[in-house]
């Protein structure tokens, strides 16, 4: 799924400018606990989370996650957006809660690799 499709599906706002618009995202994980992402997420390219702090971007970086979606309308601070842009990570924000955001993606064929 391309970022444009994800943004449309989740009615999300995209907060970064320099990510790769053509990347094809096929798997995702949903978590508020970065410990779990570090320990259980395997090859996921996208993370859906309700947690907002700089370590979310760091965790994404370490796990090769290319897209971070913040749910429930949460908006990261500008420093976090800078961090994401430096790393080529796309940051999205949706008003949807975690369950609905994950459900919509799952329905469209997005799956999880790993246990989270």
């Amino acid at each position, binding site marked *: 799924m391309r970022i444009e499709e994800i943004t449309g599906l989740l009615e999300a706002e995209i907060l970064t400018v320099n990510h790769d618009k053509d990347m094809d995202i096929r798997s995702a994980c949903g978590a508020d606990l970065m410990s779990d992402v570090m320990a259980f997420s395997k090859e996921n390219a996208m993370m859906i989370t309700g*947690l907002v702090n700089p370590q979310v971007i*760091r965790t994404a970086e370490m796990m090769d996650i290319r897209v971070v979606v913040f749910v429930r309308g949460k908006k990261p601070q500008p420093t976090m957006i800078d961090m994401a842009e430096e790393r080529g990570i796309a940051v999205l924000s949706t008003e949807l809660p975690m369950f609905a955001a994950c459900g919509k993606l799952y329905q469209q064929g997005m799956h999880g690799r790993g246990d989270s």
Partner: protein
Amino acid sequence: MEPGVIIREYTIPANDFVVAGEASSSVRKLLNQMGVAPAVVKRTSIAMYEAEINAVIHGHGGRAHVEIDSEKIVIRISDDGPGIPNVELAMQEGWSTAPDSVREMGFGAGMGLPNIKRHADAFHLDTEQGRGTTVNIIVHFR
């Protein structure tokens, strides 16, 4: 010093959740620039970042010493914090003494140390109560 060995030192500040991970991030960048295989970079990143975060949240901050040659990366993360009273317990998945403030930041599931062991080719923990903790990690490039 052997020729062709890259040495890096980093300071890991205590309880700073903005800077935490900066050392791991720098090492990751370096490995990518050197053309190390992505799967190896990821294993190294996971192991080092978990150890760095532990030094930040449990060890009152510390330092990282990294040596890279053509075959491997050797990482030593040390702190002068409280040490780990029971290493066997600390190595168990799910065992954590992290306070609520750390949980609110998204950490403290008790998964870090076992995760380091899983991703490193060699892992060694030196700790003394009241003195501090040193985590040694080796990852081979092939």
